C-alpha cells in the first residue's frame, strides 16, 4: 500500500496542517505501513452487513425540550480568547465566502 507525498500534502491541507519535506516523507511511510495493516479488513465480506455508527442499539429519539437555559456570561465566553475586541472574537482577515 503506497500513499504518495502529493496525497499526504493534500490531506494535510484539508486538516489545516503543514509538513516540511522530512515530515511529509516520514508520515508517508508511517501512514503507508498503517494503511497496509488496515487492508486486512478486505479479507472480510461485509456486503450484507449494516454499519455500526452507534453501539447502543436501543437508544433512539433523544430530545430536549425547547425551554430556555441560562447562557454563559460574555466575560466567561471570551475569557480564553487569544484575541478579542469588545464582545467579539478577533481573527486575521477572511476573504468573504467559503
Amino acid at each position, binding site marked *: 500500500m503506497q*500513499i504518495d507525498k502529493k*496525497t*499526504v500534502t493534500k*490531506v*494535510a*491541507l*484539508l*486538516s*489545516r*496542517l*503543514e*509538513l516540511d519535506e522530512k*515530515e511529509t516523507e516520514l*508520515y508517508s511511510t*508511517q*501512514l503507508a*505501513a*498503517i*494503511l497496509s*495493516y*488496515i*487492508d*486486512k*479488513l*478486505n*479479507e*472480510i465480506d*461485509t456486503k450484507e*452487513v*449494516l*454499519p*455500526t*455508527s*452507534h*453501539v*447502543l442499539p436501543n*437508544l433512539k429519539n*433523544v430530545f*430536549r425540550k425547547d425551554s430556555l437555559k441560562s447562557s*454563559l456570561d460574555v466575560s*466567561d*465566553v471570551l*475569557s*480564553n*480568547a*487569544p*484575541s478579542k475586541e469588545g464582545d467579539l*472574537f478577533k*481573527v*486575521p*482577515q*477572511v476573504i468573504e465566502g467559503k
Partner: protein
Amino acid sequence: MEKLYSLTAHELKEKIDKSSLSPSGILDSLFERIASVDKKIKAFVYLNKNASSGIEKNRSGKLYGIPILIKDNICVKGEETTCASRILAGFKPPYDATVIKRLKAEGAVLIGKANMDEFAFGSSCETSCYGPTRNPWDAERIPGGSSGGSAAAVASDQTILALGSDTGGSIRQPASLCGVVGLKPTYGRVSRYGLIAFASSLDQIGPITKDVTDAALVMNVISGYDEMDSTCVDMPVPDYTKSLVKDVKGLRVGVPKEYFIEGIDSEVEASIRRSIDVLRDLGAKIVDITLPHTQYAVSTYYIVAPAEASSNLARFDGVQYGFRVQDAKDLIDMYIKTRSKGFGNEAKRRILLGTYSLSTGYYDAYYLKAQKVRTKIKEDFDNAFKLCDIIVTPTTPTPAFRIGEKTKDPLSMYLSDIFTISANLAGLPAISIPCGFSKDSLPIGLHILARPFDEETLFRAAYTFEQNTDHHKRKPAL
C-alpha cells in the same frame, strides 16, 4: 503512624465516618507523599495546593473528604485543562464536566490534573507535551497510556482515587501496567459531557483505583443519565457496592482462544492461566469460546477512532481558546501554523490518518468498511455471551515496556492495544485487576469483560478474585 496516603478510599471513609480523621489530615499526608515522590514519577501536570478549600462543609457526601486526581482531558471549571497538548495551553474551561459536578456534589476533593498522552492518543504516556510519566515499579518504563498519570499516581499512593478515560484501553492498560484497578464502563453508562472528545463513539470516563471496592464507590457517583449527553442512557444506576460479594459459583467464564496467540509474553500468559485456575477453584465454570473477528479489531479501531478524532480536533484552531501563533499573515495561515506548532506528532499522524479515511473516494473503503466490521465484532460478543457471563483475557500482551522502545514504530505501539480495543468497539464494560507480577516485579493485569450494563457481574467476579489473592496489596518500592 499509619501512612494515610497508602490507604484506600473505603478505609479512609470508615475513619472519617468514625470522626477519627479529618479530610485535611488526608490531604496533608498526600501532599507530603507527592512532594517526595512525584519528581521521579511525574504523574501530575497540575497540583491544586488549595485543594483543602474544596473540602465541603456538608459531610453527607458518598465520597466526602476523599481526594481524587482528574485526567487532564476532563473539564474542571477554572482549572487549566490541556489534554497534555500545547494547543490548549492556558485553557480554563468555564464549566465543569458532569462527572466533576457529581464528584463535587458528593464531597470528593479534587487535588489536580493527571498527565496523559496528548489528546489521549497513545498507550505509553510518551506523547504528552509535558514529557512522559514513569512507571512507579520501574522508572525506566512507561506507565501505560493514555491515562498514565492517573494510574501511576494511584499506584504510587499520590492520590487515593483517580479518573481516567478509555477509548481503546486507556484506563485498563495503564491500570494493568501499574498494578492497580481500572474500569471502563459500558458505553453510555457515564456522561461524556465535559470529556474532551477523542473518538465520540468509543470514549468513556472511568475510575482508576487501588482496589475493586473503591472502583464501585466511584461508579456509584459518576454513573447515570445526563440530559447534556445524547448518548448517555437513562437507566437506573444500581448500588455497585452490593455486587461486592465473594461468589463466583456457577459463573460461566469465557476464555477466547484468539487472545492466547503468538506474541504474548510467556509470563503474562502463565499469570492469566493461573488466574483462570483461581476462578475455576472458586467454583466458576470455564468455557472455551471464540471471537473470530478479534484479528480485525486493531484495524477497525485505527480507522474509526482517528476518523472521529480528526473531526473532533478540528476545533483547535486558535480562534476562541488555547494557543494561537502571533505572526500569521492571514486566516488560513493562522489555522495552519497554529495547528502545526500546537499539535504533537502522534496527534498529527492520527489527524492525517482520520482525514484520509473520511475523504472522498476513501470513505467507503475505509470508514464505512470499518463500521461494518465493527458490527461483526459486536456480533461475536453477542454470540459469546450466550455461552458465558464474563470473558477473561490478558489486559496487555507484555508487561510495561521501556520508555522510547516503541516510539519509532507507531504500528507496534498500536498493536499493544490488541486485547482492550474490542470492548470499546462493542461498547462493553471491562475491568483490569492485578493478577500477578513478572520476574522483574512488573505488574500483570487480568482483563474481564461483561455484557452491556452488567457492571454488577463484573464487580462480583473482580471482587471475588481480588479477595482470594493479594496482588493488589503489593506496592512499588518508592
